[in-house]
């Protein structure tokens, strides 16, 4: 029933918990795990200035830095998979997190998306938005498992 699991991770404590949850579930079900990290470009301040004026000498190093960080925490997750005898692969993308998570889940034909949530209040969610809420309400038929902090 569950043979492919996608774990969306950003290296946070909550995401690390969902990585462990996914590996444990994969061990029980014999599923393979895909670790996805999305570099959210909308957070870059430079995006708000015109392309011509965009200081690429600043923007590129930030993106490189975030990519290296993503590679590091995904490598950590893959090491946990190898230790547990779980098959895994990783994907790093740039773009809007909700769009990229759903796109990758559909492309890889996963049976389950696992993500972490902090259990935030109404105000915090309204102000900051939430990737988890976004994925849940997206027009996708893939089940979503939200793990607790």
């Amino acid at each position, binding site marked *: *029933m569950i043979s492919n699991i996608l774990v969306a991770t950003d290296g946070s404590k909550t995401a690390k*918990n969902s990585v*462990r*949850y996914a590996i*444990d579930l994969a061990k*029980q*079900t014999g599923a393979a795990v895909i670790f996805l990290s999305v570099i959210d470009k909308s957070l870059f301040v430079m995006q708000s200035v015109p392309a011509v004026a965009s200081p690429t000498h600043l923007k590129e190093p930030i993106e490189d830095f975030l990519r290296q960080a993503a590679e590091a925490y995904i490598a950590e997750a893959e090491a946990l998979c190898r230790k547990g005898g779980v098959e895994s692969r990783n994907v790093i993308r740039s773009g809007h997190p909700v769009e990229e998570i759903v796109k990758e889940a559909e492309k890889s034909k996963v*049976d389950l998306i696992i993500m972490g*949530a*902090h*259990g*935030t*209040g*109404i105000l915090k*969610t309204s102000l900051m938005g939430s990737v*988890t*809420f976004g994925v*849940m*309400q*997206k*027009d*996708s*038929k*893939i*089940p*979503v*498992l*939200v*793990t*607790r*902090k």
Partner: protein
Amino acid sequence: MEDTKRILVVSRMTKECATAIHYGASLCRKYGAELFVLHVIHEPFVFGAWNLPMPSIEEAFRKAREEAKADMDKIINFEKKQGVAITEVIKEGDPTKEILDMAKDKDIDLIILLSHEEGRLEHFLFGRSNEEILRKMPCSVFFVKHEPGPPSYGG
């Protein structure tokens, strides 16, 4: 890492809830966990309050609920025969409150419930229950959106 020893499946007495029970039973077998099925009865239309005779809607609603319950009974009985420990509870009232109360009382490790895409109006009128549960996050939550294929169950 929390152990998954007690799983709660939320049923709203609709036919689609059979899918959630199917996932719950399957995960219980993998984890060797105990399964709780909470049937929440919540009448969104409050027939009496309209002060209008609506026998056809009320009757149709009751009939649909009975048919859904019969479907779920088939699955639950099948899973019980397979050795899954299942406890059924029926509650009437606000779904969010009943789910959160039961998760706390029974020390649940994973809640499984149905979810689907909602338009803004539908979300405003009916859809806040799942969001509320996700905000409170008493434990990990599994939102089932997809039929995993037609499971066959004995009668």
